[in-house]
């Protein structure tokens, strides 16, 4: 359970606030992306911070909270729509302790805290995911869906399956924290031989 997940040290860049960003992830428009700290961006993830709202000035496109994980091959892309004839991108906000499984495409408008999203999901445009929700693996959430707090969704289209247990918040928090601390640079072959 609590065994380290090693990565080659050269593969990830660690920031002052403890974010670990893979060198093999595609971060477009980094000036428009906020990472809360202790967030991991895995290999092959694509984060489109460049798709910003038209207009002058600085705009935050994607903000992630603390202890998040953007899994391998994930695509995080801000939602867009044409409103009154104007095409525009809209910001995406992600709370703390959010894990997004591998190869999931996220175009949500808002994801709360303590949310678990499985592998190979598609989260449609302008989806709102409230706190402590859980999206099972291989779920397709159509655009404009609202996922209430403490609910578990699965299927295509994603449907409500069950309520999450009352202790979801603590569990997810413990899980994301332990994941972060387990996610360590490989001590290397020299260190392992020494033991």
């Amino acid at each position, binding site marked *: 359970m609590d065994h380290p997940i090693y990565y080659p040290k050269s593969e990830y860049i660690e920031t002052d606030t403890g974010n670990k960003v893979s060198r093999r992830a595609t971060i477009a428009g980094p000036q428009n992306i906020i990472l809360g700290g202790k967030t991991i961006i895995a290999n092959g993830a694509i984060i489109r911070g460049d798709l910003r709202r038209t207009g002058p000035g600085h705009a935050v496109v994607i903000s992630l909270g603390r202890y998040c994980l953007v899994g391998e091959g994930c695509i995080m892309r801000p939602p867009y729509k044409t409103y009154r004839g104007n095409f525009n991108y809209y910001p995406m906000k992600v709370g703390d302790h959010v894990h997004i499984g591998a190869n999931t495409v996220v175009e949500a408008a808002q994801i709360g805290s303590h949310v678990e999203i499985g592998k190979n999901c598609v989260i449609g445009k302008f989806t709102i995911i*409230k706190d402590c929700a859980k999206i099972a693996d291989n779920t397709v959430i159509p655009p404009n869906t609202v996922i*209430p707090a403490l609910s578990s969704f699965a299927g295509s*289209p994603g449907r409500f399956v069950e309520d999450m247990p009352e202790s979801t918040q*603590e569990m997810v928090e413990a899980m994301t924290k332990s994941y972060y601390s387990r996610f360590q640079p490989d001590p290397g072959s020299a260190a392992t031989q020494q033991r």
Partner: protein
Amino acid sequence: MSPGVEYYCPCQASTPHPPQPNLASSSYSFHALHNLYFCEECDAIRCNHCVMVEVSGYYCPNCLFEVPSASVRAEKTRYQSCARNCFMCPSCSNTLTVVPSDPPDNGDERIPPTINAAGEPPFFLYCNHCRWDSAEVGITFEKPTGLAAQLQKFEDSAPESLEFERLKEHFEPYLRASPSTSGNGLHTHSPHMNPITAAASSALARDIPGVARYMPHALSRSRSGRDKNANRQEVPDYRARVEIGAITTGYALGGGAEPDVEFMRHLETVEEVATLDQRWGNSWVTSPRSIDLKPLRIPLHSKKSKRCPTCRHILIKPEQKAQSVRYKIKLVAANYLPAITVSLPHMQAALAMLRRSGRANAEPQDGTMLAGKTYPFHLSFQNPLYDPIQVRLHVQRAIPPTQPNAPETEKARRPPFAITLPTQAFPIAAFAEAWEYDDDEDMFGLEGEGEGEDEDFDAHGPKDSRGKSRTVGVLERRANVTMIGGEVMISKEARGDMKFNMLVSYTYRSDDPEPEEPSTPSRSQAQHKQPEMKTFSFYTVVDLGTIIVRDTSSVDLDS
């Protein structure tokens, strides 16, 4: 399934001892720790099967509007669905969007239509997922708001809602009269036996042969019915507005008669027929054509508070706000019982080896244990209490015969493996809040080295390390976690899952100002020693994985 530990809630059984873990029914009595509650008054574990659930608030899962309980109760006929603009697609049950009928630029359908107050008048509902739209079934709206009210007209004129109104009218006088005859006490005590339910079930039993067998209260009614009928008038027969028989023989679709055959004959695609799933929620005989499906109301969700079934104290009380995930009261078992996790060192060794040789996916395979071998396993206990505890473990070996079985089956039930666990009590240090704030780093410092350390522990850790492989005893103590080692000896002919029941007793010091337990003589045997020690015991089932027969396994996991 990877190895795991589940906790026992005794609510299903008459004895405090859990059923044998290899029985299929036992899984119903064991729960993951995070699903359990703990009643301080009764000093007992409670689970979702036994707690009393009360609705503390309703909300629409789509618009998240909090519907006052009073209006939910008042609008019984609206079957507790969202009364605003929320509808569900009848063909894929996705939520529907309101769209104007002729957007200025209709070139690309893929662009999802948006709610636009300035759209063209005839509005309709559109599904973003399967592209169903309500104009196909002839439902359009003049305004994009208050759709539920606009649709109400359709719904009110539907035969089933008219029928339901009539049914209500029919039983209304009887309902009003019944509390006076049956008395208040009886009414609250047995909701199943209220006269309306009884009448309905007896009618059902009469009309559908075979149903009576499955309805215990229908039977009991027939037994006790006679004397009760003395002071209660019989419900007059209800005559349906629309005879179902008329539909089936008539010309309506869905009755299984000529029109249906005609429809089926001219089918071009399967999609023209509505699936059973899509029609299931409808009452009455419904048309089998998928183009006859109507948009569905979205049923409300509820927030629930939970009570202890015996003392009625609240275990779970959510905050009023629907989307808040906080609780005013939350008595979960995880705050009282030590969290136990099980790990198999030989599996981790194998995994580490796999990882070293080419980065294989770090997913643990099933507990691969060969028959006829001995394996060590680790159980780690995490103490959630602010006081240190002493834990003692017992494997449930001789099972008290719950019912005298044939000796043959008795033999089959005996587990084909032997478990060795440390017999002495071992301590677990108190939970210290400060560690939470340290962001787990130093806590992990030890853990990080975890893997290869199994051998090291033998040197400095356990007292009864008899050999290199003997790993029964306390292996590691750090913070509020103690890890102990056990051993399982699998016999040659062992098959199936390796699960065993384990009784965990822990002794803790209950402080002088004891608000939690005024020394209830229930389950905790208050041992009046020094500063009052108390013992709480609970059963768990430990699943070590599946035993595989030697020849099938090609991987040698034992180094």
